[in-house]
């Protein structure tokens, strides 16, 4: 499992990096989305890979360490996902705003010299 998760994160991150090095604003936006998936997953699995151990302490008694997944990394990622949506919205609006103002969707606001 660990290897699969690690490779998945690597693929997402690499795709994101490729995209944010591109010159068009839409590519950057999609790239940042992919990178944020990768980073969220990365932070999440810093609490390690647990299967069927959701952090719901429904059983009575003092919870033992191995019984539940790490709730801290999950809580951190949960807000990060929502904030990620807000920042994507901000990128998008800046992207279309810059497009209207500069007449191009190049990240520098002007087409590169040929």
């Amino acid at each position, binding site marked *: 499992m660990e290897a699969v998760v690690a490779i998945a*994160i690597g693929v997402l991150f690499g795709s994101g990096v490729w995209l944010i090095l591109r010159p068009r604003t839409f590519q950057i936006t999609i790239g940042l989305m992919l990178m944020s998936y990768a980073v969220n997953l990365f932070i999440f699995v810093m609490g390690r890979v647990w299967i069927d151990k959701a952090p719901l302490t429904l059983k009575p008694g003092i919870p033992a360490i191995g019984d539940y997944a790490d709730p801290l990394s999950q809580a951190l990622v949960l807000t990060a996902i929502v904030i990620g949506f807000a920042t994507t*919205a901000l990128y998008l609006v800046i992207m*279309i705003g810059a497009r209207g103002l500069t007449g191009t969707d190049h990240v520098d606001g002007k087409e590169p010299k040929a």
Partner: protein
Amino acid sequence: MTLSALVLAPFIGSLVAASLPTNARNREAWLAGAIALFGLATTLRLYVPGQTVYERIAWIPALGLEFTLRLDGLAWIFALLVQGIGVLVVLYARYYMSPADPVPRFFAFLLAFMGAMLGVVLSGNLIQMVVFWELTSITSFLLIAYWHHRADARRGARMAFTVTASGGLCLLAGVLMLGHIVGSYDLDAVLAARERIQSHALYLPALILIAIGCLSKSAQFPFHFWLPHAMAAPTPVSAYLHSATMVKAGVFLLMRLWPALSGSEAWTWSIAGAGTVTLLLGAFAAIFQRDMKGLLAYSTISHLGLITTLLGIGTPLAMVGALFHTLNHATFKASLFMAVGIIDHETGTRDMGVLRGLYRQMPYTATLAIVASSAMAGVPLLNGFLSKEMFFAETLLVGGDSNWWMSYAAMAVGVFGVVYSLRFITVFFGQAAAPFPRKPHEPPRWMRFPVELLVLICLVVGIAPGISIGPVLHQGVLAVLGPDTPHYKLAVWHGFNLPLLMSVLALILGAWLYQVLLRRFQLDRRERTPILYRLSGAQAYENAMLALSRAAAFWLHRLGSERLQAQILAMLLILVGTPLWLVGLPEGWRAPPPQAADPYFVMLWLAGGGCAVAAAWQAKYHRLAALALAGGTGIVTAITFLWLSAPDLALTQLMVETVTTILILLGLRWLPPRLTPKELQLTPPWHVWLRRSRDLLIAIGSGLGMALLCYAVLLRPLPEGIAAFFLEKAAPEGGGTNAVNVLLVDFRGFDTLGEITVLCIVALTVYALLRRFRPAPESIAIPAQQTSPLDAATRQTPAEQANSGYLLVAGIYMRLLLPFMGITAVYFFLRGHNLPGGGFVAGLIFAVALIVQYMLAGTHWVEARMHLRPHRWLGYGLMLACATGLGAWAFGYPFLTSHTAHLDLPVLGELHLPSAFFFDLGVFCTVVGSTMLILVALGHQSIRSHRMPERPDARQERS
């Protein structure tokens, strides 16, 4: 009343002054005057002669930092000077400022300066003193640039600030060294450690740095050039800051640190050397000024040089002379500045080439100015004479019997002083060649009063020094010299001696030299200072600034890039390179992995990874496909969360995925078509291929690095973190079994509060940006798909489509679905504390429920039926969350402490109601509000009528 009130009152007054209306000259002046008078009274009342009064306020006790105020004799004298001249300047400024000037700004800055200056003189801690010191530089900058529409004011302000603030930084460095040597920044500790300081290896650098600070502040050579340019300030400012008080801060600090630093050879050479050069330079240049304020500025430079020289000489008697001259100079120079201000105010000019015969129009002012300039020249029975004689006596002493250079210099300054004083008073005599810009007459009664009072002090001190200024001066001398206080006597008559001879000689020679200059050198028509104009410090400063900005531009051009891609590339390289450099490659890991891979999971990620790579590929060619593919990756991520025991994350990710896709779909319309479509079959040049290969390598490298890092971490055992604590306390103390939700709304509630605030800010920013949104011209027209004549739906509005058109079924279905989705949201919200769900998820579900209605029936239809005000959701949500947090205060607990109430309801039975429930409700409202605000604002762009940006050629055709 305490010392801190003394320092605080002007700052508070400054805030009040800033908020008064623009034309409230009288109220401003009353306020400022009252504060200065209050300060005077407090200073007089608090001081205990011969002792030091302290006030210490603990600031960060753990670090031993405290705010120390300290009032001894020296601080007392300077505080009296600052506030006494302050009162007079305020009164004067009331009449000087024109009704058109925005006076709140003036008095606010003036009061802030007063506070900063009092902070400097009263500080008992060196660092604290430097902070106030820099504050005086800032307020001085603001005051010089008061008439900021004038280029000379802006230039002068910048120059003064650059020089004095850079000096202040040197001072800070010097003070830090001093503190390092002594082991404390406390002034008393520093003053007591003379031997230790002077024998330390860092003494010389510390002395030089502190000297640079003091000399630059007091306009001493080679930093003197800023002061004449600072004369662009209104005259009350020149009288107050640039003659009586701020420029005295440098000599004040030299006096303050005199017990600790003085007496060494380095001290004498640096301080007395700079002082002597300055006093000659200033006095010489003063003779050749045409501007009356310019003359006074150079004369100030010269007199400050005199004080500095006395301090540099380093004998106790010289110290007495320095302090005495500081006070004398403040009185006669402030009155002279005010007199010049009156002349400028009444005639409209300050040009000594033009001004003549003012005695007839303004005899009072003329008499006052003549007396004050006599004090400046050192005429007997005036205060300037006494301290100048002390100076002569000290210079005779310093060289002994053989070395007379210092005495020659002193003599030259005496002569020059007489010359420029004579030059100054020529404006009152003779006959003007041309009429002045305005017809002069005496100023208002109370505008003249400060001048009268200061001149009176000049006379009283000059005639009876022993009983007038003597006791005051003695307090300051005692504070600096302590047991070394020499025996001295302030008297007009010391018998026939060499200093007296020098004074008389200076007067005679000065009068003679003035005549010679006038007759032979056409003094009244000279435009520049002979010889010295070549050594223009101001020009050197401007050149240095120009070179600095050129060098900055050069390096920016060489090392920086305006292109985003280059910047991102550099960031990524550092991101990938730094960990490798810091920790090296991860060491070999333990095989085999502890958990076997599930084949379904592998297949899931084959799809997810494939989607990501395909999205990366398609983002250039087909935006919609790329968006769908990225969404696929998002879904796979959500499933992964669910698989790996994070149901809350899975739910949130799923909903966020939905709204993000809608969001970008709404934005896609405003993007331009691709520039070079594939059909053109353009082959990119080789360097593009090279760049792409490089980027691909970086992408693969960073992906690989991330995967390796992740794998390396995952195979190490989980260190004992704080997870166990949260799991243990979630149910008993947080009142919920869903540890993630309890963490969000309880344990880390403050964090969540911050995050929803960010959410609000972003949503409002998006909204604000979209209000000013100007789309590109070609995307304003309705898209081709919506205008096709073949499609019957194009002739219907979205509302018609959903109510009677082809979307009828879907429309009814969606409308029916709304309550169910609402209930789902409520369900997830209510169970959130114990089972997966909570404010974030419920908010997103509810937002999606509303957005679906928009999507189907259009904006008009929905908004005609539903008054949804996303701003209010945002506001109420944040308020509810904050109020829940603040509620804890009412019960004496820290912010955001949660409490679980147990209610016994008749039908429902026992109900656990944690206060976190209300906090979560706030989160819910904020999430609904911000999501709706963003999406609706974006959606509205399509129905807004956008003005076509006019093409330039169209405008030409019309005209």
